[in-house]
């Protein structure tokens, strides 16, 4: 009998102090996770370790109890001074599979729908393969989870819209200018938030980046790091006239950019300009935003966009869950097909269907001939199936049964009825 279990520490229940101890680095995979194989009937393990979670997805054949070895593994990682047990989450059967699907779809992430987790799932798939931890069931589960994760992002809005202020600023710029290849950006005030936005813009390929600060030396310093161009603050309006994207994040008490001089300096450019004011108190006089071709967003506007995007993502959760249920159902059907009995039933069913179809061709034959054909084909079918069915039942190990069932399913393209989701629950 195949059993699937999940053990994990996640940010929902486990404090960071413990999460950082149970991280599964490459050496831990080799030294601690790989030895799980063979204990308590464990045949496959898929480990996943990110900053928000450390999880193990385990496949067992037979009746062994995986709790002991898994708890011992985590106790070893956590150290004797912590009771890791208290925070360990556990699930079995399809509930365990559902956990991985939700993780891959970003439903279990701190930032709902974030895309990085799907890459991390794949990264750990590669690592687990290198350490020979995966097998038929975990490979199929991962295939299902990755497919479900992709579908969730393609077919719903779970991953749409920026959910951080700095990304919202970049998204706005992208919505106005498309690409940044020929665009010039200016950062006024070289504080942490402004620098973060500037880094995002540079990562998206902005052509030129001007850095302006009251203390010119700090602009020079950041310019070195970001490969930008430091500009004295006295040249502010001349720089604005050349810029397409302006991010202002100074700690100045009054308006740094005023409507009058701004109007005069940008009058000749007649191109759209995006001004992002993330300073408190604000750096840009609100009247600037009334000018044609000027898009002025302050911190409240950006947070409004971020909030709207978060709400939109939350509204998509039900849609994603329905999609995951489809994927889970297909996985359950496949998992059910690996048991010997359903495979034998499906194999017999397949042969019987072929036999019936062939006999249909003789339905106009005399009754005696039809009866003879019925008897002969049935006996022929039973004799053909007798040896493989008996051998399959007599196979000594569960893993052999699993392999043979899967081979039969593939060779004969066996179809299994939809599985009962409860059937694989503990």
């Amino acid at each position, binding site marked *: 009998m195949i059993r699937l279990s999940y053990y994990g520490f996640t940010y929902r229940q486990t404090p960071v102090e413990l999460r950082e101890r149970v991280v599964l680095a490459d050496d831990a995979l080799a030294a601690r996770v790989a030895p799980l194989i063979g204990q308590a009937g464990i045949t496959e393990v898929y480990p996943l370790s990110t900053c928000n979670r450390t999880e193990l997805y385990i496949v067992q054949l037979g009746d062994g109890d995986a709790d002991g070895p898994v708890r011992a593994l985590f106790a070893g990682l956590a150290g004797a001074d912590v009771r890791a047990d208290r925070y360990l989450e556990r699930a079995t059967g399809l509930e365990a599979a559902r956990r991985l699907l939700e993780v891959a779809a970003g439903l279990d992430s701190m930032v709902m729908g974030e895309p990085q987790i799907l890459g991390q799932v794949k990264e750990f798939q590669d690592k687990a393969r290198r350490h020979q931890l995966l097998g038929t069931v975990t490979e199929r589960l991962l295939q299902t989870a990755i497919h479900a994760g992709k579908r969730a992002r*393609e*077919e*719903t*809005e779970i991953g*749409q*819209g920026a959910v951080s202020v700095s990304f919202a600023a970049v998204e*706005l710029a*992208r*919505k*106005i*200018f*498309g690409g940044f290849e020929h665009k010039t950006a200016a950062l006024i005030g070289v504080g942490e938030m402004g620098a973060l936005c500037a880094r995002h813009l540079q990562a998206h390929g902005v052509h030129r980046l001007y850095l302006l600060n009251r203390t010119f030396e700090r602009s020079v310093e950041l310019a070195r790091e970001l490969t930008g161009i430091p500009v004295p603050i006295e040249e502010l309006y001349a720089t604005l006239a050349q810029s397409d994207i302006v991010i202002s994040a100074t700690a100045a008490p009054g308006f740094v950019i005023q409507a009058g001089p701004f109007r005069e300096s940008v009058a000749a*450019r*007649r*191109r*759209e300009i995006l001004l992002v004011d993330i300073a408190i108190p604000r750096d840009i006089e609100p009247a600037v935003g009334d000018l*044609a*071709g000027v*898009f002025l*967003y302050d911190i409240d*506007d950006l947070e*409004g*966009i971020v909030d*709207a995007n978060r709400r939109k993502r939350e509204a998509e959760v039900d849609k994603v869950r329905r999609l995951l249920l489809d994927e889970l159902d297909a996985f359950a059907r496949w998992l059910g097909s690996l048991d010997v009995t359903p495979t034998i039933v499906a194999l017999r069913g397949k042969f019987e269907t072929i036999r019936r179809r062939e006999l249909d061709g003789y339905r106009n034959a005399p009754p005696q001939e039809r009866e003879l054909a019925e008897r002969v084909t049935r006996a022929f079918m039973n004799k053909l199936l007798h040896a493989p069915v008996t051998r399959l039942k007599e196979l000594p190990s569960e893993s052999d049964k699993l392999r043979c069932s899967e081979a039969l399913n593939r060779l004969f393209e066996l179809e299994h009825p939809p599985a009962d989701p409860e059937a694989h629950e503990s």
Partner: protein
Amino acid sequence: MMTTFTFTAQAAFTALYLAAAYLYLKYFFSVERRCGLLAARVLVAGLVVHLAALAVRIAHLGYLPIATVCDALSFAGFIIALAYVCIEKFSRDLSMGAFVAPIICIAQVISLLWFHPSGDLPVRYRSPWFEIHVSGSMFAFASFAIATIGAVLYLVLYRELHRKRPGRFYSRLTSLEQLDRVNFYGSLLGVILLAVAIFTGFNWMREIRASADLRLDARIIATWFTLAVYLTGLVVRRITRASGRTLSLLSIAGFILVVMAFAFEGISH
């Protein structure tokens, strides 16, 4: 026989255009990219069927079948679809399809409802000048139509961005700059094609009447005005680097004149 073929073919590509419009709209109002990708393929399939039908009819008639309102409308829809497919391939953006495909459908459905295919063409219309004139006008119309769709979407997105209330258009449409590019190049191409159409129309009139007749009827005035408005928009933009918003407004005004010119064209025929 040919009439049955024309009607069947037209029904077939109209059905494909309708399916494409449905899928583009579904893509716009949901987020399923595969709907958008499928829509793009169905639109191309519609274009291929349309092109094949046109080829058969050209082979049969010996001229481009655009002599009746029914055929002219259908051909206009074909050109718009062709132009849009090129833009889509270039920009890799599927969102404009939700606005272009319904226009193609409207043209095809009206054409199908007023089904009256071109038959024998009077001798005066059997001139290469006339064919270039009419097809040039059609291509210009299609370019202006696409430019106008770009202009309208530009203004809608501009409004959402300026009011700081990003809504559906914000999340679905391509960037302002891309829409501006569609508007600019659509207008530019339209102006060139319209100039070609005017020049060849002038030559055709000279050919059939031995002297060019430049009566200033409503159709010709509307055409000249159209050219003037679009040219002004392009020149103003070039010289003063006017914003995309200005060109969008001029583009929409120009297209109203285009529609008027075509309406006068229909009345005069």
